[in-house]
């Protein structure tokens, strides 16, 4: 048995659902193709982020002290919260897929809304963090000043970070370049995902998924989880470098 269509070809000329596209022989074939295609697309996404992870690995080894110092300017509270938020949104998305599979329209709408809300919270927190970087002159290229790493200020109630020498401090710009490139690309994926979520929400409210044609939701779920996975790696790599120091 070599081809997925073979078994279903003979005899099963049962009613085709209206949403089956003409060039597929069976619904199963259509569904499998869609999820396989989605996975291939996710592979391209892995490689897309892969370039930046390579860069990260190299520069982290070269400029470890700068990466530690850069990492310590990030708020661990905000970062952890965001991780939790994103994981939860992944969970609600998974629930959404389940609701769609079991044809629970209400549950689907609630799940999408929750996912959307959590996504917004994530982006909100992210923008707070970005704003903070802007204020602190830690945005590479546009607004960057390494002097805060040469003469670190002590936060009230906290010991000051150890100062960096000027040359190493200047290399924090590499860290922040990667920080913004990686989290920026991630956020861009989130924004695209949220656009799709709104699109799905409208269709769900109209009852477009009640007939069991939920390939779009399932594949969007894959996308959303992928975005989650990227963050799962970004969080320790960017936020958690040598917190004990």
């Amino acid at each position, binding site marked *: 048995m070599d081809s997925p269509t073979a078994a279903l070809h003979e005899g099963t000329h049962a009613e085709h659902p209206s949403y089956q596209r003409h060039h597929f022989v069976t619904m199963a074939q259509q569904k499998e193709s869609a999820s396989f295609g989605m996975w291939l697309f996710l592979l391209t996404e892995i490689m897309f982020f892969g370039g930046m992870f390579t860069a990260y690995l190299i520069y982290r080894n070269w400029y470890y002290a700068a990466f530690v110092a850069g990492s310590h300017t990030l708020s661990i509270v905000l970062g952890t919260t965001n991780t939790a938020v994103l994981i939860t949104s992944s969970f609600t998305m998974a629930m959404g897929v389940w609701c769609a599979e079991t044809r629970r329209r209400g549950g689907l709408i609630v799940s999408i809304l929750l996912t959307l809300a959590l996504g917004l919270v994530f982006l909100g927190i992210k923008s707070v963090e970005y704003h903070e970087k802007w204020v602190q002159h830690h945005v590479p290229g546009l607004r960057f000043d390494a002097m805060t790493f040469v003469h670190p200020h002590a936060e009230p109630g906290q010991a000051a970070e150890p100062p960096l020498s000027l*040359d190493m401090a200047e290399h924090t710009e590499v860290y922040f370049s990667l920080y913004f490139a990686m989290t920026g690309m991630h956020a861009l994926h989130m924004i695209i995902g949220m656009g799709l979520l709104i699109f799905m929400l409208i269709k769900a409210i109209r009852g477009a998924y009640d007939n069991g044609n939920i390939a779009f939701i399932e594949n969007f779920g894959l996308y959303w989880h992928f975005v989650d996975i990227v963050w799962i790696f970004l969080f320790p790599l960017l936020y958690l470098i040598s917190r004990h120091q």
Partner: protein
Amino acid sequence: MDHISPVLWQFLVKWLTNFAVIPPEASKVAPQMDALLLFMTLVSLVGLVLVILLVVTFSILYRRERHPVAVQIEGSTLLEATWTIIPLGLFLVMFVWGSVLYFRIYTPPPNAMQIYVVGKQWMWKAEHPGGQHEINSLHVPINQPVQLTLISQDVFHSFSMPAFRVKREAIPGRYTTVWFEATQEGTYHLFCSQYCGTAHSAMIGQIVVMSQDGYKKWLASSTSGVSLAQDGERLFASLSCNACHNGTPSARGPNLAGVYGSTLTLSDGQRVTVDDEYLRQAILNPSAHITQGYAPIMPTYQGQVSEEGLFSLVEYIKNLDSNYRIQQTTNTTTLAPVATATVPNAATKGMVKP
């Protein structure tokens, strides 16, 4: 030859007189390179002729008119194994041979004479240890291994010497090296072979291979009066390097005498051999190159010393075999810094914005 147009005739004559397949073999490595090239060309020719023979023979023998019905053949494991293993073996020979050559070209011998080269848009600046500077030309003595230490001030360039069969990219931010030993006097092409912007094709020059005596004469006639090491010494003083690196027991910086070529243990436990690149990095990015037992207090000189200045400093430190010179510098205040040598390199850092 009346019936041949004179233009065409001249062209043919020109072609026949100028025709060459390989450039002159002017270095020690050139015959070795050519031997490998010849070997590869022969193997390629054999392969190509074999393919052509097969195709032509089969096309004649089995053309439709002679052979109207094809005989279906599945394949032949033996034949396929043959043309997998034989090319593989040949390619592996080329790989080993090529790699030996590669390591030979990029591993300078210890007795090589040092010349420093800075590439910038769009010229080559060569500096001889004696302080002779030249632009878009390189004078070298015959039968003497010469090591080039290359760096680029802006974009990638490539120092290409076809007559020597060697070439090396000058890249920004890091030294690269290549060496050769010229074996034939003459003037040869020097090209920049990595595309480097508008006047890329004007970034050419000449390599002049001279007799040992001729080279000495040339050195004497084109000296600027200050050797690289002397220039480095002046920089060393004017940048106040000697404030810390003065070789006294209480010094804040490590003793630099004899440091070149030694193995250091860094503050993070890493062991490194001190070479040109290490010295350059230690000046520009000192905090990652702290010798064990010293405090990370050295400031960076990024943007304060030009690439030429760095070469001078490197050459100076290389030649420090005792602390005598440093102490002299520390003691005499007469060695005032010469402004031109220490101009901060701000102008070259300013880059074109989109």
